[in-house]
């Protein structure tokens, strides 16, 4: 059977606005499959985003959605989760939205370990506004704001999430379609803050400035650059040069924020009784 994505999409919303070959659509399909795997009830599931091409994703989804201010998705999502802890809260957005303007909210969401799942669509660029460099634009790469090559070192979003305290961190790419839903589903099931970084392509603003002749070239790069963590453990350092580790990178159990907060409420009630 062909997969029924349409049941999860608001009627009449396709075609979406993303450019030909933009990986955001591939990630959206993975998200839908992951939500199905986990049996999420659309009336009890909120998808929250900020601003950017990636952040348009919730607008297509037939569930509770919240399209907020640039970089503020994690903060709004935390508000939803605190008000309705029983709700499944998912966050989606780009590298610019998540770790440039939203970097502060991102790290503190990780630190608190609220039970939310953040899917970062990392295409190494600000797509929506015409290709300005982001904190994940590779050093040396061209962006509209770095026409002579980007001098900045980059963020590794997964490492940033681990360092900030997220308790489930995984990475894959838009090419590795079946891994997208597996990892997002694992993240949803994990009790605590989950970050799934999906390396993505922006042919329009990154590809054409950086010598990718086609969408297919960009997909091939994603295929070649990814090395599963288990395989990497057995590989010599020189073979891992320029590669990006994929799979579950980190997982630990730590008290979840809303559960801890509920205890404080009980304690306060006791004190005032």
């Amino acid at each position, binding site marked *: 059977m*062909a997969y029924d994505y349409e049941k999860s999409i608001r009627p009449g919303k396709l075609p979406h606005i993303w*450019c*030909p070959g*933009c990986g955001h*659509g591939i990630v959206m*399909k993975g998200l839908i499959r992951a939500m199905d795997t986990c049996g999420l009830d659309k009336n009890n599931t909120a998808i929250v985003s900020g601003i950017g091409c990636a952040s348009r994703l919730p607008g297509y989804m037939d569930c509770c959605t919240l399209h907020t201010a640039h970089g503020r998705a994690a903060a709004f999502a935390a508000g939803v989760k605190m008000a309705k802890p029983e709700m499944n809260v998912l966050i989606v957005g780009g590298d610019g939205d998540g770790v440039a303007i939203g970097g502060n909210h991102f790290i503190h969401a990780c630190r608190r370990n609220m039970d939310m799942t953040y899917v970062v669509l990392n295409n190494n660029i600000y797509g929506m506004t015409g290709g300005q460099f982001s904190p994940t634009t590779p050093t040396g790469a061209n962006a509209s704001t770095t026409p002579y090559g980007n001098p900045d070192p980059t963020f590794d979003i997964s490492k940033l999430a681990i360092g900030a305290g997220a308790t489930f961190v995984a990475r894959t790419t838009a090419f590795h*379609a079946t891994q997208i839903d597996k990892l997002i589903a694992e993240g949803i099931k994990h009790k605590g803050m989950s970050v799934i970084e999906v390396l993505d392509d922006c042919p329009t603003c990154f590809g054409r400035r950086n010598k990718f002749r086609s969408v*297919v070239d960009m*997909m091939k790069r994603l295929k070649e650059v990814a090395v599963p963590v288990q395989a990497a453990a057995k590989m010599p350092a020189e073979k891992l040069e320029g590669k990006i580790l994929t799979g579950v990178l980190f997982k630990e159990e730590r008290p979840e924020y809303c559960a801890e907060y509920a205890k404080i409420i009980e304690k306060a009630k006791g004190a005032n009784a």
Partner: protein
Amino acid sequence: MSSPRVEVIDRLCKGCSICVEFCPTRVFEMDGFIAKVVKEDACIKCMQCELRCPDFAVKVHTE
């Protein structure tokens, strides 16, 4: 076992050629700006095209 029916929804296809390039048995070809099914019999139901089409434009009907 019935053979799959591979469908490209013309209205949704944006012609990125991901399906054309990554189908292991070359079921698709570009036809101007959109993809077209040209060798349906060769399909091995791997579902790679349906999984990777960013535009929800490919359907592989296996039953």
